[in-house]
């Protein structure tokens, strides 16, 4: 998340933001609002604008808002107090989520990469 995007984030609370919505990509369809089990994301009063995170502390971190966003505008931000580390087997170098100068992302998708199925 760059500082430019961060400045555009809508949130009402000082508590860590569990989901961030990219206002450039967001079309205001409110699908993330619809699937949020905790009802912590609510529609923007202004039609077409990005939804707003009202109750960040109630997030269940299921990621359904990310999975159902049709334009990939929603990102899940896991609490910083749950960041784990790993060690590269070959180099013995240590890494940690959130570290400075992180390694490049691994792009291999999970098995069954499609979360959503067609419902008619």
């Amino acid at each position, binding site marked *: 998340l760059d500082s430019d995007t961060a400045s555009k984030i809508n949130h009402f609370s000082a*508590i*860590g933001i*569990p989901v961030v919505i990219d206002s450039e990509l967001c079309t205001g369809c409110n699908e993330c609002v*619809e*699937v*949020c*089990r*905790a*009802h912590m994301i*609510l*529609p*923007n*009063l202004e039609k077409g604008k990005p939804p707003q995170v*009202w*109750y*960040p*502390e*109630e*997030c*269940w*971190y*299921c*990621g*359904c808002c*990310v*999975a*159902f966003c049709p334009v990939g505008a929603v990102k*899940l931000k*896991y*609490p*910083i*107090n*749950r*960041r*784990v*580390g*790993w*060690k*590269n*087997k*070959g180099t013995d170098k240590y*890494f940690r*989520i959130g570290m400075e100068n*992180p*390694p*490049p*992302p*691994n*792009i*291999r*998708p*999970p*098995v*069954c990469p*499609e*979360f*959503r*199925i*067609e*419902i008619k």
Partner: protein
Amino acid sequence: MAEINSCQNEKWPYKLDYGKELEVSGDVLIVGSGVAGCHAAIAAAKKGAKVIAVDKANIKISGSGGSGVDHWHFACTSPCCPISPDEMIEIVKTYPFGVTGETGLGPTCYITCNESYDTLLDLEKYGATIRDVDDEFAGAEFRDEKTKLMFAYDYDGKHTLRVPGVQFKQAMYKGMKSLGVQFFEHIMITSLLTEGGKKGTRVIGATGVNVITGEFYIFKAKATVLATCTPLGIWSYSTEVAGSNKLGGEPNGGSAYALGWNAGAEFTMMEASANRGIFGGWAPDFGAGAAFATWYACTLVDAEGKEIPWIDRDGNVLKTVSERYHARPGQKFFLGTVHPFGMPYEYRGPSIIPDLGKRISEGEYKLPFFADLPSMPEHERRAIWGLMVGNEGLTRYPVYIQYSRAGFDPNEDMLEVETLPFQAMIPSKTPPVRFGSSERNLGFVGGYGGLVFDWDLKTSIDGLYAAGQVLAGGADYSASACSGRFAGRSAAEYSSKSSQRTVDRKQVDIEKERVYAPVTKGNGLEWKEVQFLVNKTMQIYCPEYKNEEMLRMGLKWLNDIRNNEAASIYVRHPHELQRALECLERITVGEIVMQSSLLRKSSNRGLDFKRLDFPIIDPPEHQKYITVRLTEKGIESGELPLNYWLLPPNAPTYRENYEKHAKLK
């Protein structure tokens, strides 16, 4: 109804309609449309019932299993599994109180053994992927080449399937839609309606409140299925630090428990509660390296890269990774799940060395440990990381995608293992200093207390059925799905033979008054403050070691809190109203727990239940279920023998009872 303060409505992005009444009627009402509820809806609709499915969230993703699953337990009837349901059900005898851990009490377990695979096929029919359709795992030891089904834990027993279950909930939704089930989403059920408005009479519907608009619903149904989650947040509920309340599952107040209790249904094993545990809060669920559950049987190495040995049930060190996934010669199958007393020898599988704590303290192995995915065979590594972690409900985004974005590569990187559980294994040289274990969760190793039920999955009151986690003994994903299916059939059959009854208006009015009370106040207490008070009361008066005096004080204060602090909760929006009502549910659940605790006048190892005033553990005459319910006259208790489901009036065998009640035709 009292006047509602309109200034509270400012800025709420939905049209508010507090108190507006909507009436809906049908044959079968589903309270909580998660895994169990959706399967109940599908089964009832297939029997021709007009089904009403209600949930607090969108049913496409709602419930504890809404965002995915990776294991499918006890698929005994799959073409690959050599174990019959009648062989598998023998395991029940080894578990205290007949609670098998992940597949619940005896009847729940047997239903699961019989219907688990068919339930999975239903999901496939509705569009979910259940097999290795892309042949990514072709040639893997855990894959059946003909059916493309994949197995977990025991590659000989093949009773537990590995499933890419991220789409399952949507498949249920699709199935329900195709069968004409009516959806009522974003609605919290607040009370059950009973005949004549009395406790213990037939359930004839329910009331609900829309948690985004505030509208009031009256659901009229001939049969009702309770299928919500087990209560969480009874001893602790914190929203102060992001994610700190996430341990265990969805923040659920225990709707079915409060609803059933107030309607007069009978509960059992509600005295059981366990330490909240030391696993929480370190990483996302299954997001640290491990060697069990999703991570079975990953190689662990110590800080210097030294491998932690695996042994078989006789203590012999296993030389290959493959051996960890196979039964021993002469052993038909093993179970990869936890057992409160340690898995009996007959069903015991491979494990990492049990004296690891001692060997750490002697310096043989150095903390921290790492999950050595790179050393695992490619198929096993991909199965753990890409299939299981990639599809389990709370791991696809928090773990698989988050870690991948941060650069974690299972082919090269070893994920750190949480150190605390190993610290706890180290034998203490000084006398242990115990601090209060007051932060607890409902239930015990592998199971939960809940509604007493019979072979129809009917509760103790007419018209009311139960499925999934609310059944006494609990249920995991596949057991919730199977019990849901079964309860749905029972409810449909009951509804086809009964008529709708007139709702008692007085009961509705009293409930309406209660539900909207927090809305009518201009000021008062915030729900979170009251929630914390309820938690504190549970921590102080219902901790690990209990006695009569503490429990009686706790009950007195919970009642006092209900009449005072809880009565002055004010809310600004329907969302906060939902949270306030959940807080009130937790008071009721706390009361059930303390009433049940008072009734068990001995300590019990199986239930992890400790009475200071009755320290004798497991006296034989107390090895029974103690039941409790609320009647018009007050609390009533009863008892049921262990194995009550195989005693008269039931038939003596699982098979006979199942066939008599399954209603498959």
